[in-house]
């Protein structure tokens, strides 16, 4: 498995390609964490479109990132999950805490919409 990273503002998009299991989970974890820290990203979007296999190790990876990102006030999104990946994440109840979006664009839209609202709230508060 390898990861492709993309950034827009304070959003990191991590596109995973290949098989996510216990073996690959280690590098996925550290690569995402290090990139988030290095570029001071606040939000994280997992792009799972090109994930060809995933077992319960993937649940740990998503939950672990969720805990880290939300601790710093960010949000985590899952985008483009296959039916199969979704099934496994669903078993663990992931979607009750992590938002699922059809694709990366929708997730970015939602985050930007939220930012817009935050700005309006702070503007009207002044």
């Amino acid at each position, binding site marked *: 498995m390898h990861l492709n990273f993309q950034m827009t503002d304070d959003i990191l998009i991590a596109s995973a390609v290949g*098989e996510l*299991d*216990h*073996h690959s*989970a*280690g590098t996925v*974890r550290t690569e995402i964490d290090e990139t988030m820290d290095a570029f001071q990203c606040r939000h994280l979007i997992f792009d799972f479109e090109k994930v060809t*296999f995933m*077992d*319960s*190790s993937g*649940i*740990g*990876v998503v*939950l*672990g990132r969720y805990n880290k990102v939300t601790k710093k006030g960010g949000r985590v999104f899952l985008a483009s999950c296959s039916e*199969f990946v979704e099934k*496994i994440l669903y*078993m*663990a109840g992931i979607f009750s805490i992590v938002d699922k979006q059809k694709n990366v664009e929708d997730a970015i839209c939602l985050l930007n919409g939220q930012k817009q609202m935050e700005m309006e709230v702070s503007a009207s508060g002044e």
Partner: protein
Amino acid sequence: MKLQFSARAENEAFARSAAAAFVACLDPTIEELTEIKTGVSEAVSNSIIHGYGENPNEMVTLECRIRAGGKVVITVRDEGVGIEDVEKAREPMFTTGKTEERSGMGFTVMESFMDKVEVVSRTGEGTAVTMTKQLDISYGL
């Protein structure tokens, strides 16, 4: 089919691919193949992580059998630390994994993708997980 391999994480992909290749002659659906691969991946990584603490000098055994009517029986065996309380270990979210991010969902995933999951384990002796799955083969065969 019987396969023995060292308890290294790299071998997880090898083990599940071997199982998939073995059952391919039954002409399974993509879905059935993915479910079998996932079950094998869960059991094998448990042996490597929990059974052996990723000690590459230890060996994991994978056995696959095909029974009449397209029934697949897969056993993953280790001679590792064993499980103290199997019933508890099988509960969703139960995990003893501390150093890594384990979710305790491995057994739950195996149970939902395979028809039957049997666990025989003894502390200090090891663990054998046997998973059974009836493939939906057409009657013409």
